[in-house]
Protein backbone atom coordinates (compact mmCIF):
# COMPACT_ATOMS: atom_id res chain seq x y z
CA UNK A 1 0.00 0.00 0.00
CA UNK A 2 2.72 2.39 0.99
CA UNK A 3 4.96 1.62 -2.00
CA UNK A 4 2.20 2.15 -4.52
CA UNK A 5 1.42 5.59 -3.16
CA UNK A 6 5.07 6.53 -3.09
CA UNK A 7 5.65 5.51 -6.66
CA UNK A 8 2.90 7.92 -7.62
CA UNK A 9 4.64 10.68 -5.73
CA UNK A 10 8.02 10.09 -7.34
CA UNK A 11 6.74 9.47 -10.85
CA UNK A 12 8.37 12.62 -12.13
CA UNK A 13 11.89 11.49 -11.29
CA UNK A 14 12.65 9.39 -14.35
CA UNK A 15 11.37 12.05 -16.70
CA UNK A 16 13.39 14.81 -15.10
CA UNK A 17 16.52 12.71 -14.77
CA UNK A 18 16.71 12.58 -18.54
CA UNK A 19 18.30 15.96 -18.12
CA UNK A 20 16.18 19.05 -18.13
CA UNK A 21 19.22 21.25 -17.45
CA UNK A 22 16.94 23.83 -15.94
CA UNK A 23 19.00 26.93 -16.69
CA UNK A 24 20.88 28.28 -13.70
CA UNK A 25 17.76 28.21 -11.63
CA UNK A 26 17.84 24.76 -10.14
CA UNK A 27 19.48 24.80 -6.74
CA UNK A 28 20.10 21.09 -6.92
CA UNK A 29 22.20 20.98 -10.08
CA UNK A 30 21.93 17.56 -11.61
CA UNK A 31 19.27 15.25 -10.27
CA UNK A 32 20.55 13.16 -7.39
CA UNK A 33 22.41 10.08 -8.49
CA UNK A 34 21.67 6.85 -6.75
CA UNK A 35 25.06 7.06 -5.03
CA UNK A 36 24.27 10.35 -3.38
CA UNK A 37 20.78 9.17 -2.52
CA UNK A 38 22.25 6.24 -0.69
CA UNK A 39 24.67 8.50 1.15
CA UNK A 40 21.86 10.80 2.26
CA UNK A 41 19.64 8.03 3.57
CA UNK A 42 22.47 6.14 5.23
CA UNK A 43 21.13 6.43 8.79
CA UNK A 44 20.11 3.01 9.94
CA UNK A 45 16.44 2.56 10.64
CA UNK A 46 15.44 3.61 14.11
CA UNK A 47 14.91 0.91 16.71
CA UNK A 48 14.03 0.59 20.36
CA UNK A 49 16.82 2.17 22.34
CA UNK A 50 17.72 4.71 19.65
CA UNK A 51 18.07 8.29 20.74
CA UNK A 52 15.93 10.78 18.83
CA UNK A 53 18.09 12.93 16.57
CA UNK A 54 18.90 16.42 17.74
CA UNK A 55 17.06 18.40 15.11
CA UNK A 56 15.24 21.68 14.76
CA UNK A 57 11.83 21.48 13.13
CA UNK A 58 9.25 24.09 12.29
CA UNK A 59 5.80 24.69 13.69
CA UNK A 60 3.36 26.81 11.70
CA UNK A 61 1.54 29.59 13.49
CA UNK A 62 -2.03 30.84 13.28
CA UNK A 63 -2.91 33.57 10.79
CA UNK A 64 0.17 33.05 8.64
CA UNK A 65 2.56 34.01 11.41
CA UNK A 66 6.20 33.14 10.77
CA UNK A 67 6.78 29.46 11.53
CA UNK A 68 8.59 28.89 14.81
CA UNK A 69 11.70 26.77 15.27
CA UNK A 70 11.16 23.82 17.57
CA UNK A 71 14.14 21.92 18.93
CA UNK A 72 12.80 18.39 19.11
CA UNK A 73 14.85 17.30 22.09
CA UNK A 74 13.66 20.31 24.12
CA UNK A 75 10.04 19.50 23.25
CA UNK A 76 10.30 15.89 24.39
CA UNK A 77 12.69 16.37 27.33
CA UNK A 78 11.51 14.56 30.44
CA UNK A 79 8.31 13.46 28.73
CA UNK A 80 6.82 10.33 27.31
CA UNK A 81 5.70 11.25 23.79
CA UNK A 82 4.06 9.59 20.82
CA UNK A 83 5.44 10.64 17.46
CA UNK A 84 3.78 9.51 14.28
CA UNK A 85 4.76 10.46 10.74
CA UNK A 86 2.88 10.43 7.49
CA UNK A 87 4.07 10.64 3.90
CA UNK A 88 1.80 13.58 3.21
CA UNK A 89 -0.48 16.06 4.88
CA UNK A 90 -3.97 15.95 3.37
CA UNK A 91 -3.37 12.63 1.62
CA UNK A 92 -6.07 9.95 1.92
CA UNK A 93 -4.56 7.31 4.21
CA UNK A 94 -2.92 9.90 6.40
CA UNK A 95 -6.11 11.95 6.68
CA UNK A 96 -8.71 9.20 6.87
CA UNK A 97 -6.97 6.71 9.09
CA UNK A 98 -3.62 7.48 10.64
CA UNK A 99 -4.27 10.96 12.04
CA UNK A 100 -7.89 10.34 13.14
CA UNK A 101 -6.79 7.27 15.06
CA UNK A 102 -4.49 9.46 17.14
CA UNK A 103 -7.15 12.13 17.62
CA UNK A 104 -9.51 9.53 19.01
CA UNK A 105 -6.82 8.02 21.19
CA UNK A 106 -5.73 11.15 23.04
CA UNK A 107 -7.45 10.33 26.33
CA UNK A 108 -6.28 6.73 26.26
CA UNK A 109 -2.73 7.79 25.48
CA UNK A 110 -2.73 10.25 28.36
CA UNK A 111 -4.04 7.59 30.71
CA UNK A 112 -0.99 5.51 29.73
CA UNK A 113 1.35 8.36 30.57
CA UNK A 114 1.91 9.68 27.05
CA UNK A 115 2.07 13.40 27.72
CA UNK A 116 2.21 14.62 24.15
CA UNK A 117 1.47 13.46 20.62
CA UNK A 118 3.43 14.89 17.72
CA UNK A 119 2.53 14.53 14.06
CA UNK A 120 5.37 14.87 11.55
CA UNK A 121 5.55 15.15 7.77
CA UNK A 122 8.01 16.69 5.37
CA UNK A 123 5.45 19.20 4.14
CA UNK A 124 6.21 22.83 4.91
CA UNK A 125 5.04 24.48 8.10
CA UNK A 126 2.16 26.37 6.46
CA UNK A 127 0.68 23.17 5.08
CA UNK A 128 1.15 21.37 8.40
CA UNK A 129 -0.52 24.16 10.35
CA UNK A 130 -3.47 24.18 7.95
CA UNK A 131 -3.83 20.42 8.16
CA UNK A 132 -3.67 20.44 11.94
CA UNK A 133 -6.21 23.20 12.16
CA UNK A 134 -8.68 21.82 9.62
CA UNK A 135 -8.45 18.17 10.62
CA UNK A 136 -9.30 18.68 14.27
CA UNK A 137 -5.86 17.40 15.22
CA UNK A 138 -4.64 20.68 16.68
CA UNK A 139 -7.85 21.07 18.70
CA UNK A 140 -7.23 17.60 20.07
CA UNK A 141 -3.87 18.80 21.35
CA UNK A 142 -1.63 17.16 18.76
CA UNK A 143 1.43 19.19 17.81
CA UNK A 144 2.05 19.35 14.06
CA UNK A 145 5.69 19.73 13.11
CA UNK A 146 7.17 20.25 9.69
CA UNK A 147 10.27 18.22 8.89
CA UNK A 148 10.77 20.10 5.63
CA UNK A 149 14.54 19.55 5.55
CA UNK A 150 13.96 15.88 6.41
CA UNK A 151 16.55 16.02 9.18
CA UNK A 152 14.38 14.00 11.56
CA UNK A 153 13.14 11.64 8.88
CA UNK A 154 16.62 10.90 7.56
CA UNK A 155 18.04 10.78 11.06
CA UNK A 156 15.57 7.97 11.81
CA UNK A 157 16.49 6.20 8.57
CA UNK A 158 12.90 6.46 7.36
CA UNK A 159 13.14 8.72 4.34
CA UNK A 160 11.67 8.03 0.93
CA UNK A 161 14.16 9.87 -1.25
CA UNK A 162 13.00 11.58 -4.39
CA UNK A 163 14.36 14.17 -6.73
CA UNK A 164 11.50 16.51 -5.99
CA UNK A 165 10.45 16.08 -2.39
CA UNK A 166 11.72 13.76 0.32
CA UNK A 167 8.88 12.11 2.16
CA UNK A 168 8.70 10.24 5.42
CA UNK A 169 7.72 6.63 5.62
CA UNK A 170 4.69 6.05 7.78
CA UNK A 171 5.64 5.12 11.33
CA UNK A 172 4.80 5.66 14.95
CA UNK A 173 7.03 5.57 17.97
CA UNK A 174 7.01 6.22 21.67
CA UNK A 175 9.99 8.04 23.16
CA UNK A 176 10.75 8.52 26.83
CA UNK A 177 12.97 11.53 27.50
CA UNK A 178 14.20 11.36 23.94
CA UNK A 179 14.89 7.63 23.82
CA UNK A 180 12.76 5.36 21.67
CA UNK A 181 10.92 2.77 23.75
CA UNK A 182 8.50 1.49 21.13
CA UNK A 183 8.71 1.60 17.34
CA UNK A 184 5.97 0.69 14.91
CA UNK A 185 6.91 0.32 11.27
CA UNK A 186 4.44 0.32 8.41
CA UNK A 187 6.55 -2.16 6.48
CA UNK A 188 4.06 -4.98 6.99
CA UNK A 189 0.80 -3.15 7.55
CA UNK A 190 -0.01 0.55 7.64
CA UNK A 191 -2.40 -0.15 10.47
CA UNK A 192 0.49 -1.31 12.66
CA UNK A 193 1.29 2.38 13.01
CA UNK A 194 -2.20 3.51 13.96
CA UNK A 195 -3.10 4.39 17.53
CA UNK A 196 -4.93 1.19 18.54
CA UNK A 197 -1.84 -0.91 17.88
CA UNK A 198 0.36 1.61 19.69
CA UNK A 199 -1.99 1.60 22.71
CA UNK A 200 -2.13 -2.16 22.87
CA UNK A 201 1.58 -2.32 23.49
CA UNK A 202 1.66 0.26 26.27
Amino acid at each position, binding site marked *: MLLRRCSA*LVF*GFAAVASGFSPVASSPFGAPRTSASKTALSMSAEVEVGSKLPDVVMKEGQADYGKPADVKLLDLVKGKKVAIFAVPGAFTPGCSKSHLPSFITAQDDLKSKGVDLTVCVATNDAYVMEA*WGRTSGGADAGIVFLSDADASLTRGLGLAIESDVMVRSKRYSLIADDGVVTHYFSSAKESSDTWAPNVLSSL
Partner: protein
Amino acid sequence: FSLPGAFAPTCSSTHLPGYEAAYEEMKSLGVDEVYCLSVNDAFVMRQWGLKQGLTEDKTVGANGFEKVKLIPDGACQFTRGMGMSCNWDTERGFGERSWRYSAVINDMKVEKIFIEGGGITQNSGPDPFEVSDADTMLEYLKSKDD
Protein backbone atom coordinates in the same frame (compact mmCIF):
# COMPACT_ATOMS: atom_id res chain seq x y z
CA PHE B 1 0.18 32.47 -12.41
CA SER B 2 2.57 30.51 -10.29
CA LEU B 3 3.38 30.85 -6.64
CA PRO B 4 5.71 29.39 -4.00
CA GLY B 5 3.25 27.45 -1.91
CA ALA B 6 -0.30 26.44 -1.26
CA PHE B 7 -1.37 27.63 2.21
CA ALA B 8 1.52 30.12 2.34
CA PRO B 9 0.73 33.68 3.46
CA THR B 10 0.86 35.97 0.42
CA CYS B 11 -0.29 33.19 -1.87
CA SER B 12 -3.37 32.59 0.26
CA SER B 13 -4.26 36.07 1.42
CA THR B 14 -3.79 37.94 -1.82
CA HIS B 15 -2.40 36.23 -4.89
CA LEU B 16 -5.02 33.54 -5.45
CA PRO B 17 -8.01 35.56 -4.17
CA GLY B 18 -7.09 38.40 -6.55
CA TYR B 19 -7.26 36.17 -9.60
CA GLU B 20 -10.37 34.40 -8.41
CA ALA B 21 -12.15 37.73 -8.09
CA ALA B 22 -10.89 38.91 -11.47
CA TYR B 23 -11.72 35.67 -13.26
CA GLU B 24 -14.87 36.79 -15.06
CA GLU B 25 -13.31 40.05 -16.13
CA MET B 26 -10.25 38.25 -17.50
CA LYS B 27 -12.46 35.94 -19.49
CA SER B 28 -14.34 38.90 -20.92
CA LEU B 29 -10.98 40.26 -22.09
CA GLY B 30 -10.35 37.18 -24.19
CA VAL B 31 -8.64 34.87 -21.73
CA ASP B 32 -9.91 31.33 -22.12
CA GLU B 33 -8.72 30.01 -18.79
CA VAL B 34 -6.85 31.03 -15.68
CA TYR B 35 -4.49 28.54 -14.05
CA CYS B 36 -2.75 28.74 -10.72
CA LEU B 37 0.36 26.61 -10.37
CA SER B 38 2.41 25.62 -7.38
CA VAL B 39 4.92 22.91 -6.61
CA ASN B 40 2.67 20.97 -4.26
CA ASP B 41 1.02 17.60 -4.56
CA ALA B 42 -2.54 17.24 -5.76
CA PHE B 43 -3.95 16.49 -2.31
CA VAL B 44 -2.53 19.64 -0.76
CA MET B 45 -3.48 21.75 -3.78
CA ARG B 46 -7.12 20.66 -3.80
CA GLN B 47 -7.51 21.14 -0.06
CA TRP B 48 -6.02 24.61 -0.42
CA GLY B 49 -8.58 25.49 -3.07
CA LEU B 50 -11.39 24.24 -0.86
CA LYS B 51 -10.13 26.10 2.20
CA GLN B 52 -9.75 29.25 0.10
CA GLY B 53 -13.46 29.06 -0.68
CA LEU B 54 -13.13 28.22 -4.35
CA THR B 55 -16.27 26.55 -5.68
CA GLU B 56 -15.66 22.96 -6.59
CA ASP B 57 -16.60 21.59 -9.98
CA LYS B 58 -16.97 17.83 -9.76
CA THR B 59 -17.96 17.32 -13.40
CA VAL B 60 -15.87 14.57 -14.91
CA GLY B 61 -13.16 16.15 -17.03
CA ALA B 62 -13.45 19.54 -15.33
CA ASN B 63 -10.32 20.84 -13.68
CA GLY B 64 -11.68 20.66 -10.18
CA PHE B 65 -12.86 24.21 -9.59
CA GLU B 66 -15.30 26.50 -11.35
CA LYS B 67 -13.14 29.58 -11.81
CA VAL B 68 -9.39 29.61 -11.32
CA LYS B 69 -8.05 26.14 -11.99
CA LEU B 70 -5.40 24.87 -9.61
CA ILE B 71 -2.62 22.82 -11.15
CA PRO B 72 -0.28 20.96 -8.81
CA ASP B 73 3.18 20.87 -10.38
CA GLY B 74 4.17 18.29 -7.79
CA ALA B 75 7.19 16.94 -9.66
CA CYS B 76 8.26 20.45 -10.60
CA GLN B 77 8.48 19.55 -14.26
CA PHE B 78 6.63 22.53 -15.67
CA THR B 79 8.31 24.92 -13.28
CA ARG B 80 11.77 23.66 -14.18
CA GLY B 81 10.91 23.79 -17.85
CA MET B 82 9.94 27.43 -17.43
CA GLY B 83 13.27 28.10 -15.72
CA MET B 84 11.33 29.24 -12.65
CA SER B 85 12.50 26.65 -10.15
CA CYS B 86 14.02 28.02 -6.95
CA ASN B 87 14.40 27.02 -3.32
CA TRP B 88 13.56 28.67 -0.03
CA ASP B 89 15.27 26.27 2.37
CA THR B 90 16.44 28.30 5.31
CA GLU B 91 14.07 31.18 4.89
CA ARG B 92 10.84 29.23 4.84
CA GLY B 93 11.59 25.53 5.05
CA PHE B 94 10.52 25.14 1.43
CA GLY B 95 12.34 22.80 -0.88
CA GLU B 96 12.30 23.25 -4.61
CA ARG B 97 9.44 25.57 -5.53
CA SER B 98 8.25 27.94 -8.18
CA TRP B 99 9.35 31.54 -8.13
CA ARG B 100 6.34 33.87 -8.19
CA TYR B 101 5.35 34.98 -11.67
CA SER B 102 2.39 35.38 -13.97
CA ALA B 103 2.16 34.96 -17.71
CA VAL B 104 -0.15 35.12 -20.66
CA ILE B 105 0.20 32.06 -22.85
CA ASN B 106 -1.18 32.32 -26.33
CA ASP B 107 -1.36 29.15 -28.41
CA MET B 108 1.43 27.61 -26.31
CA LYS B 109 3.72 30.64 -26.61
CA VAL B 110 4.57 32.98 -23.80
CA GLU B 111 3.01 36.23 -24.96
CA LYS B 112 3.83 38.14 -21.82
CA ILE B 113 5.50 37.23 -18.53
CA PHE B 114 5.66 39.14 -15.26
CA ILE B 115 8.49 37.84 -13.07
CA GLU B 116 8.78 39.17 -9.53
CA GLY B 117 11.96 41.08 -8.97
CA GLY B 118 12.80 40.67 -12.63
CA GLY B 119 14.34 37.29 -11.91
CA ILE B 120 14.84 34.50 -9.43
CA THR B 121 16.68 34.86 -6.14
CA GLN B 122 17.60 31.57 -4.49
CA ASN B 123 16.65 31.21 -0.84
CA SER B 124 15.26 34.71 -0.99
CA GLY B 125 14.53 36.59 2.20
CA PRO B 126 11.84 38.83 0.72
CA ASP B 127 8.92 37.31 -1.12
CA PRO B 128 8.22 40.03 -3.70
CA PHE B 129 4.71 40.50 -4.91
CA GLU B 130 4.48 43.51 -7.19
CA VAL B 131 3.96 42.54 -10.81
CA SER B 132 2.36 39.10 -10.89
CA ASP B 133 -0.88 40.16 -9.25
CA ALA B 134 -4.31 40.15 -10.88
CA ASP B 135 -4.58 43.93 -11.22
CA THR B 136 -1.36 44.18 -13.20
CA MET B 137 -2.57 41.35 -15.37
CA LEU B 138 -5.91 43.05 -15.97
CA GLU B 139 -4.18 46.29 -16.96
CA TYR B 140 -2.07 44.39 -19.45
CA LEU B 141 -5.09 42.55 -20.87
CA LYS B 142 -7.01 45.78 -21.24
CA SER B 143 -4.11 47.47 -23.01
CA LYS B 144 -4.03 44.61 -25.48
CA ASP B 145 -7.74 44.70 -25.95
CA ASP B 146 -7.69 48.01 -27.84
